[in-house]
């Protein structure tokens, strides 16, 4: 094995279709699989510098099911509140004994730097607004289970795309899997430039009849998104997934959301809890996908 830091998963950018499908195949094989001792003795450190519930818990459960030990850094209780730099935190955790880092951070290059500083593989559990690659794999797996294929599927990503690392991960990988993406939202929520060359629309109702997947995003007020739109609730009327909008969809179309959801804003109960909703299936697929990337990072063949 060459540089161990290269076996992590930091970005899906440039990853070919074969490699992506290989990851999905392997994740599918982990669905409902028994606990193994495959990674017995390995230590996986979760270092989340931004709040997370589902992602962190699902990584922990994935590591447990592979037999690995978890070391969790909770920055709000640790030295980072005493002014320790990100670099020193990574070096310290490496010295304690870490085989793999799972990192969430507000910085776009946090994972690359942690890999360089530690010499350990790093899995990106959400870096800045740049990418959230395991969420992308989860959503691809969920759609493949639902439709049996991804080729030609049309997904409308709706909402605060500018602030969304989930959307950026999707934009890097889902077209390579044969999907067609459209970005939908008010102009302040859309990226100012379109390096992906995908379709962009400000009118959700125009898109609904033509889409297989409506992928809703939360408004990330913590990243300043609320300042881009009026505070009068008009967003929900223009872009919220309401019962009326559900009726405009194709019969087989589905609703997805990476969570956490804000009911009554981007999604109504009828959409979140209805039969088109794949939201809980997405959450369930978190474990097999994360088992896959942890196992690959630590060189396990499965």
């Amino acid at each position, binding site marked *: 094995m060459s540089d161990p830091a290269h076996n992590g998963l930091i970005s899906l950018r440039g990853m070919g279709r074969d490699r992506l499908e290989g990851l999905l195949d392997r994740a599918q094989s982990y669905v409902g699989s028994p606990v193994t001792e495959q990674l017995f003795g390995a230590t996986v450190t979760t270092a989340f510098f931004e709040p997370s519930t589902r992602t962190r818990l699902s990584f922990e459960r994935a590591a447990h099911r592979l037999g690995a030990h978890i070391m969790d850094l909770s920055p709000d209780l640790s030295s980072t509140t005493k002014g320790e*730099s*990100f*670099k020193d935190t990574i070096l310290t955790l490496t010295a304690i004994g870490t085989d793999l880092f799972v990192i969430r951070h507000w*910085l*776009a*290059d*946090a994972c*690359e*730097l942690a890999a360089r500083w530690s010499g350990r593989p790093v899995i990106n559990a959400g870096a*800045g*607004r*740049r*990418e959230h690659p395991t969420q992308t794999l989860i959503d691809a797996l969920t759609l493949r289970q639902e439709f049996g294929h991804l080729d030609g599927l049309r997904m409308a990503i709706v909402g605060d795309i500018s*602030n*969304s*690392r989930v959307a*950026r991960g999707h934009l890097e990988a889902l077209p390579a899997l044969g999907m067609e993406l459209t970005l939908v939202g008010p102009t302040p929520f859309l*990226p*100012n*430039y*379109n*390096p*992906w060359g995908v379709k962009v629309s400000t009118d959700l109702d125009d898109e609904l009849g033509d889409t297989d997947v409506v992928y809703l995003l939360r408004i990330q007020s913590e990243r300043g998104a609320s300042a881009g739109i009026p505070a009068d609730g008009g967003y929900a009327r223009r872009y919220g997934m309401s019962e009326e909008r559900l009726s405009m969809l194709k019969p087989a179309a589905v609703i997805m959301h990476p969570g956490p959801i804000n009911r009554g804003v981007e999604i109504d109960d009828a959409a979140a809890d209805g039969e088109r909703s794949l939201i809980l299936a997405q959450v369930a697929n978190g474990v097999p996908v994360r088992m896959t990337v942890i196992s690959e990072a630590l060189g396990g063949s499965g």
Partner: protein
Amino acid sequence: MIVIRNAGVLRANKIEQATVVIEGDTIASIGMEPALNGARVIDAKGSWLGPGLVDLHVHLRDPGQTWKEDVESGAQAAAAGGFTAIVAMPNTQPPVDSGSSAVTAFERARAVDALDIVVAGTLTKGRAGKEMAGFDGMYEAGVRVFSDDGDAVPEAGLLRRVMAYLRDLPGALVAEHAEDRSIAGEGHMHEGMVSSRLGIAGLPGIAEDVIVARDIAIAADTGAPLHIQHVSTMRSVDLIRGAREAGMRVTAEVTPHHLALDESSLDGLDPNRKMYPPLRGADDQAALRSALREGVIDAVATDHAPHAPAEKAVPFEEAPRGVIGLETSAAVVASYVLGDDQTTFFDRMSVAPARIAGLERHGRALEPGSPANLVLFDPKRRWVPGSFVSKSQNSPFAGMELTGRVLATIHEGRISYEGGLR
């Protein structure tokens, strides 16, 4: 006595292959072979000899941040870059914003032999953007260039009063860092294809454009001369061109890094390519190059902004803004824009900036009796910058092959740098 043979000499109306003889602080003769008793003879075949370079925009970090740079190390770096005069920006700690601080800064500057350091003063007290700085005291101490560099003057009303006052002081120049903070926010790179793809908060070009437009309007209203620092956008260039065509006294500078690089080189998030204004789009870069050739942008200025290695060895979004530029400026400008045109090269690198800053002993064509502030530059020499004379090493050009190298620098008849001579 210094004798330089076989260089292409930039004279008032021509470029001439000739022998230049320097005695004392003056060019004694051009074209005549002197008696060589004890003279230093430099054979400079294929090289350009012209007036020493002048940089309108340097951060010496002294006083206040001398771990990054100080007057002496900055002077040595500048001499190595071919400069014989530099304008030191006033955003030191404390800033140069009064007569007494200007007197102190000039005393430090005049203690340096390697080149002339010209002290700039702030436009507002404490560089805080609230009230006028002590213009008369600074002017009496010798300050002619005034800038709040690092920030634009935020309030249009204050800038109008500042310009109305400085208009009455002959030779005084209002130099603006054009950035509207209410638009730029906390951005880290040009708002464009790369920032959109990486989800990095952007610095849109419009943050510069609106200040350039505002400042030109206020300059037209007050009649004060205006200099736009480190122009980086296509629209700014168009606004400046329009002002010049209307006969206004508006000048502008561009940095070597904005001429050479664009946003595409930020894909790897290298903190040594983070600065303000940020590396812009390819269309902006093309507009800057042609504006410099045309003369719509008068001068190249480095915005030499040293930061210590540890300060830059951090995540991109946490890294301080700024890159060093003194030691690579001539090579970068020759490599990317003006390497084929000696006359224009020396105009933009020396003649024009000396005129803008009002420096009589710099930026003059070589004639008998001219001051011996000179640079010898080989436009064909290839080299790869690695380590720098500056205390800081935050260059975007480290490891890149450049074409054109400063061979030697002469300040007031004395060799201040000769590290490029073989």
